Structures are given as structure tokens and as C-alpha cells.
């Protein structure tokens, strides 16, 4: 993995991912001190994302690395009209690695071709967010003890949700079964269903959230955004149909865990938070270990 950019979930192999998950587990167990001492890492956030940026910066600083960068494009020379090409070329000279988020799709791939240092994609529009996928996989393995043969419910916006698409691709290497729960307007796109079909992976589509919920090992919730709907009435109906409530957990498997990439709005009721099946807040903490493992792998330190 040394010196390779991580732009898309398909850039690394299954073996690469397992190696990163193992390293993250080691880092969680014991933080190696000062592994990143002497390294300067640029975090370029052309679009604000507090959660992802802080997770990266915390990951770097806990290992003794230095961070340079900006948290939104208003405080960079982008406002002066500088092209992404030029920004990346310049920042390559100042840093050992670039972490970037950008509102345009494909921007991270382009940056990785311009940069003389590796690039980690922290989200390029609706396209890819591979470190989120790795932390989701880490959370799944940590709570289930394995990645193989799991029953995974993907719930909410399955049409535009990049996290569910990447997770589907990545988990397909581990023989899962999927249940897709979404309103008609936000169904899983056919290209992903064709992909599952080609891999011989079973999936089921349903509108009723509670159906078969007793089979789930993982319930992966996503936010349904109002602006995705052409009809506001339809949104109001859907919004309440796909809410996970505490009473729905009664017959679920004892080891079942609920994940959510956050931020949530109302799709998980607050009373679920106290349940031992709620894992979404710990999931976010796992992001620090995963990002440390990715950065150290790419810099060739582990």
C-alpha cells in the first residue's frame, strides 16, 4: 500500500483492507507513540465537514504528526480563483500526504494524478468516501467477530447514499445477505443489484422496515434527505415509515448492532440510544483508529 492513493473503495484489495482492519485493532489496543513524528499531513477541506476533518486531525496528532490545511474553501486561495490542479501541486511541496474533501465528483482521483505525494479521499461529492467504508467494516467485524456470512439491512436513502454503495461493494467479498429497505423513490440503483447478481449474492427489497428484522446482524441506517423528493407529501410519509424505534428491537438478535454514518436527523428515535444494540456513537470513535492505520500504511510506517 506504500505510496498509493486511496480514492475509491475499489483501489485496494480485500487483503489490503483486512491488513488495515488488523492494524486499526492494534492501534485501538495500544496507541504507538510518535509514529508520525516528523510528518506533515495536509487536510484540505474544500467543503466543510467537521466530523471527518476532526477525526483525521485527531488521528494524526495522537501519533505525533503535524497538520496543515484549511477547513473550508473560503479560507484558501480557491476564492481567488485558483484551480484545484494548482492548489494540489503547491500543497504537494509542503506535505507528505494529502487528505482532501471536495464537493465535485472525481476531484480526488484527479488530485491523485497531479500530486507528487499520496492522496486520501475524504469524500468527493456523492461519489466515494472510502475511509468511512473501512470504519464501517471495522465496526462490523468488531461487533460481530467476523465479516463473513452476515445478514445486513441497509435502510433509508439507497439511491444517493454513497456510504451504502461503498459498503455494499466492500462487504460483497464476504458472502453477505442484504435486505434493502427504502421508499420507492430511493431504491438501490440497478447497477448495484447487477453487481450482486454477478457475484451470486442474495438480496431482498422491502418497504416495510419491521419485516424480517429478526434476521438482521447489522442494521445500517442512513438519513433520508428532504431535497431528494419531488413530492413533499411523499417525503413526510416516508420520513416516518423508516424510523427505527425501540419497540422494533424486541425480537432482534441479541448480537445485532445498529450503525449509522451520522449525522442522524429523526431516523433513529432517541430512546434507541440507550440500547446495547445502538453502536453509532462508538462507530464514530473507531474512525480515529482506522484513519491512523490507513495513513501509516500509505506512508509505509507499518
Amino acid at each position, binding site marked *: 500500500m506504500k505510496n498509493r492513493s486511496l480514492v*475509491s473503495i475499489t483501489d485496494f484489495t480485500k487483503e489490503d483492507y483486512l491488513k488495515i482492519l488488523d492494524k486499526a485493532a492494534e492501534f485501538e489496543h495500544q496507541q504507538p507513540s510518535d509514529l508520525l513524528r516528523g510528518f506533515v499531513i495536509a487536510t484540505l477541506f474544500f467543503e466543510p465537514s467537521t466530523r471527518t476533518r476532526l477525526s483525521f486531525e485527531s488521528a494524526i496528532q495522537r501519533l505525533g504528526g503535524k497538520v496543515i490545511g484549511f477547513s473550508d474553501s473560503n479560507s484558501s486561495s480557491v476564492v481567488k480563483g485558483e*484551480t*484545484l*490542479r494548482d492548489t494540489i501541486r503547491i500543497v504537494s511541496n509542503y506535505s507528505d500526504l494529502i487528505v482532501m474533501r*471536495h*464537493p*465535485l*465528483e*472525481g*476531484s480526488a*482521483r*484527479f488530485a491523485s494524478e497531479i500530486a507528487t505525494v499520496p492522496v486520501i479521499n475524504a469524500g*468527493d*461529492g*456523492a*461519489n*466515494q468516501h472510502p475511509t468511512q467504508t473501512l470504519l464501517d467494516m471495522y465496526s462490523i467485524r468488531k461487533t460481530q467477530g467476523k465479516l463473513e456470512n452476515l445478514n445486513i439491512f441497509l435502510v433509508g436513502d439507497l439511491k444517493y447514499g454513497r456510504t451504502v454503495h461503498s459498503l455494499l461493494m466492500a462487504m460483497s467479498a464476504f458472502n453477505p445477505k442484504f435486505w434493502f429497505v427504502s421508499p420507492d423513490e430511493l431504491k438501490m440503483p440497478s*447497477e448495484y443489484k447487477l453487481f450482486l447478481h454477478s457475484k451470486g449474492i442474495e438480496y431482498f427489497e422491502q418497504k416495510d422496515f419491521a419485516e424480517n428484522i429478526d434476521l438482521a446482524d447489522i442494521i445500517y441506517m442512513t438519513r433520508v434527505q428532504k431535497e431528494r423528493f419531488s413530492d413533499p407529501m411523499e417525503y413526510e410519509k416516508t420520513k416516518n415509515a423508516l424510523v427505527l424505534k425501540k419497540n422494533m428491537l424486541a425480537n432482534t438478535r441479541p448480537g445485532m448492532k445498529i450503525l449509522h454514518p451520522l449525522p442522524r436527523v429523526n431516523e433513529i428515535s432517541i430512546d434507541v440510544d440507550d440500547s446495547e444494540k445502538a453502536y453509532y456513537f462508538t462507530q464514530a470513535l473507531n474512525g480515529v483508529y482506522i484513519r491512523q492505520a490507513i495513513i501509516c500504511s500509505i506512508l509505509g510506517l507499518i
Partner: protein
Amino acid sequence: MNDKKHLMVSAIKDGTVIDHIPARNLFKVISILGLNKIENQITFGTNLESKKLGKKAIIKIANLFFPEEDINKIALVAPDAKLNIIRDYAVVEKKVVQVPDEIVGIVKCFNPQCITNHEKITTRFTVIQKKEVALKCHYCEKITDQEHIEIL
């Protein structure tokens, strides 16, 4: 009658004839092959009757023979095009075009949020389907289908 036909598409001694171009895409073919920038003698006819295409166009280029990878670029806009290689007034070879595995430049990514539509970047696509052409953008990973293909 024969004379009229003769006028429309006069014969060439040496060169290439590209037939069965959909009439609406004639100028796209000209631009993809850069025929508007060369000095060779070129004749073309358009809106000719065709059972298969409705209206077709034909181009005759004197003293020019295309490498395979160049000619395959027109497959996106003229998938049924047939090439006749002419030497000394006789057809010495017939070729059909084939959609290549990768398209560099030529096509615009249909995704308005793609970086290639915001910065000066040469577009790049993997051809994931050849019959009803579907192109996957190397950058934004979105798929541009036949219906949305726009030539740069």
C-alpha cells in the same frame, strides 16, 4: 439518373470511403477525425436514402488511410460505419468500426458535478458496454449512456 448519383459521390483513386454514417452525426465524424483541419480532397454526401439508417451520410477522403485506433473513435457516433479502402479505383479492403475499450477525450462526462466539467482535464472513460454504448468516467465513476453521449 446514373449521372446524378455519380455527381453526389464521385469516385476516388486512392483513399478511404466511410459509408453508413447516420446523417445527423456527419459533422461529429468530421470533427472526431479532424477532417476539417487537413488539406486532402474530401467529398461528402448527406441525407442520402438508407434502408437501415433512414438518412445516411458518406465521406470520401483522397490519399488518406486511418490507423485502426483512430477510426474506432467514430464508433461512438457511427457504430454501423463501413470503411472501404480504395487503391487505384478498386476496393482493396473493407473494414467495420469497433468500439474501443477506453475513450480518451472526445466525449463529455454527462455528470454536471464531475470535476472534468469544471477544470481543464482530458476526459477518460472505460467502455463497460459496447452494444448500447455505456461509458464509465475514470474520475467521477458515473456512467454516461448512449443517449447522453455528447461529443466535445
